[in-house]
């Protein structure tokens, strides 16, 4: 397919996945804050500040909202603020713009699902969020995105367009799940003594729930909730669809489908980087990673995911014309 169109679809998928996970990150934090309330006021800056860092947009946030980190400021910034290019509204809006450009490739219902969602979302604000309660509001946002995936899944032919969609979606998911694990890391940072306490266990339960992983974790028979077991599950579970390794494997599969039949792309750097990352994750010992520093490890994963992204752009989208393969 045309490189431009492939890129539009790839980004559409990334933006939607990011929107969903941003909603999940806000959700897990709102739940963590509730768990913490016995000890801290909800307005304690420590309750909401971690989100700002995890999103990677802290400079923008402090520029727009000043130093005082309140729930309201963070929620507005992460859900509704168009000035934040990673806010849910920005992501959905960009995804819709891309979808509009490739409407021909999408079934009518796929476009309509996204368009209707956007038209509703753009009028929402903090008041609406507060009125419904964070959990209910964020559930609705997630459900709308899930609806889009469902419609797309049942309507789109499994051609290149579909595989670029899958590629974007799973790379973004791998990145985002690593960031969700990081939220908990930040929350614990000031209070390392709490590890293993009842509160700690509640908090890890919340992290799992934000990835819709709580019940799946239980069924995987990994036993009691603990830092190591939860991190291992979200990082390395081979069958849970939001785990980092599963997502990377899906991206790898999508790449294999895209280059299927094109011999000159058999050993492309994007596929190689994705495969190397998956293999390293499979070999990772979670206990050792935690001992050496979980945050640093997650950072490395995010950097390597970005390397895959850059390789995708250079292989399929922005390749140099003079060196490109001329097709028969």
């Amino acid at each position, binding site marked *: 397919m*045309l490189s431009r169109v492939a890129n539009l679809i790839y980004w559409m998928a990334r933006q939607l996945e990011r929107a969903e996970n941003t909603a999940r990150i806000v959700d897990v934090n709102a739940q963590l804050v509730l768990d913490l309330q016995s000890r801290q006021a909800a307005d304690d800056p420590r309750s909401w500040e971690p989100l700002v860092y995890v999103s990677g947009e802290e400079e923008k946030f402090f520029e727009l909202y000043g130093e005082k980190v309140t729930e309201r400021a963070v929620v507005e910034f992460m859900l509704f603020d168009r000035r934040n290019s990673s806010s849910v509204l920005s992501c959905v*809006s960009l995804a819709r713009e891309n979808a509009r450009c490739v409407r021909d490739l999408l079934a009518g219902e796929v476009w309509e699902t996204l*368009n209707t969602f956007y038209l509703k979302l753009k009028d929402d604000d903090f008041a609406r969020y507060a009125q419904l309660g964070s959990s209910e509001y964020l559930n609705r946002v997630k459900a709308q995105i899930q609806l889009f995936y469902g419609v797309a899944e049942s309507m789109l032919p499994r051609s290149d367009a579909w595989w*670029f969609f899958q590629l974007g979606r799973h790379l973004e998911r791998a990145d985002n799940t690593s960031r969700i694990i990081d939220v908990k890391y930040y929350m614990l940072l000031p209070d390392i003594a709490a590890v293993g306490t009842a509160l700690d266990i509640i908090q890890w339960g919340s992290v799992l729930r934000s990835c819709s992983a709580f019940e799946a974790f239980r069924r995987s028979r990994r036993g009691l909730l603990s830092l190591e077991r939860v991190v291992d599950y979200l990082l390395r579970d081979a069958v849970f669809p939001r785990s980092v390794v599963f997502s990377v494997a899906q991206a790898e599969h999508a790449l294999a489908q895209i280059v299927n039949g094109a011999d000159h792309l058999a050993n492309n750097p994007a596929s190689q980087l994705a495969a190397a990352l998956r293999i390293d994750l499979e070999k990772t010992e979670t206990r050792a990673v935690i001992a050496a520093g979980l945050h640093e490890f997650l950072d490395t994963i995010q950097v390597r995911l970005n390397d895959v992204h850059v390789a995708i752009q250079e292989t399929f989208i922005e390749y140099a014309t003079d060196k490109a393969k*001329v097709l028969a």
Partner: protein
Amino acid sequence: MPDIFHGYDHGRFYDEMFAAPGRPRAHYQRLHERFSRLDSMGNLLERQRTADQTFVNRGVTFTVYSDTAGTEKIFPFDLIPRIVPAHEWAHLERGLTQRMEALNLFLADIYSDQRILREGIVPREMVNTSKHFRREMVGIPVPRNLYVHINGTDLIRDEGGVYRVLEDNLRTPSGVSYVLENRQVMKRVFPNMIRDYHVRPVETYTSDLLALLMRLAPDHVLEPTVVLLTPGVFNSAYFEHSFLARQMGIEIVEGSDLVVENDRVYMRRSDGLAPVHVIYRRLDDDFLDPTVFRKDSLLGVPGLVDAYRKGNVALCNPIGTGVADDKAMYYYVPDMIKFYLGQDPILENIQTFLSSNANDLGYILENLPKLVVKSVNEAGGYGMLVGPHSTQAQIDEFRAKIVDNPRNFIAQPTIGLSRCPSVCESSIEGRHIDLRPYILNGETIKIMPGGLTRVALRKGSLVVNSSQGGGSKDTWVLAADDHGQSQSQSQEGPEKLIV
């Protein structure tokens, strides 16, 4: 129950449906009976709403881009068809074919020997000062010697019902997608009537167009790749671009999707560069190649013109056709027909005054309130003055413009365009219409039976352009002159055919 045509004002114009109040023309009789049987206007309006909704659902829309809306407007559609009897169409077909032949010969001539200029039939100055004349193309051969492939000639009927040519559109005429979609909708709303009337189908247009495009590819290419080049999703005609690309099963590309290497054109695909042989471009010459034409164009493809000159890629329409739809050049088309074909024009122009001609200029300036003045290079109803509907200030403004640049204007008497009954809010009223047939010049000249009937839905308006509040009607060209009477009825006259 009142007849829904009761009280219809026939007006002082040629009415397509009624020969006189209450007396429909022969080819409208069946439709008149059918509509008269409808209970009331309400029934008709309900069908109109069904039709409108069908357009929305099918996504037949103009993109009116704005973030909040996400809305797109439908091109207003009127349920009452324009019916063209077979003998009238045969006449139009002959006239349009003749005109297309002459225009192709004219373009071939001025981009090679320029015989018509040397013999003084068309003033050399006229060509040299035409904004769309491309000197760069003189002496450059074109595939199959076809200098123009697609023309949308606008026809009108004057007060006497005589069909006349209003203008030619030889660059990137639009609107054909509406013709095809209008028919789809009419088939749903009035299936029986379409069958009974023996309406000639329009559906082969996209196959004919694709065949034409494939034929333009360089000879050695057995399986040519054809693409449609669009300015992009925000262009108001994007619906049509994507519609035609889908119908023909070709890729729709933007300028940034194409690259030129060694004077060959490729499209950038995720798996590499795929050769492109024919480009159906919906982009004006000016924007095609920033290294040759407008330097600031971001829509085009650097190097495209060189690839075209070398014959490695074909463009449809070719570069430089715009010189022949310059509205001042229109004045000379009847002379071209005589010069190249030795024939009298079958379809007449509208009387036209050139302000670059000293005698005409005096007449124009004295009679502005009676005339329609058009700027020679504009389309879409822009840059025109309709004298009888204008204020003194508007007239004075145009007078100054004409004096300042006479070459840039022509004037024509205000023609009372024919009217056709149309569904208005609570009644049926006459509205002015024109007709744009689409003429393809490939192996032979093929004209889709019918074309886009545009209707000025604003009361009294003579401007039918979609950008100026116009809508459209389905155009029914009848296969035979029996006017859809059932076959069991006795036929009269020697020319009656039953299909």
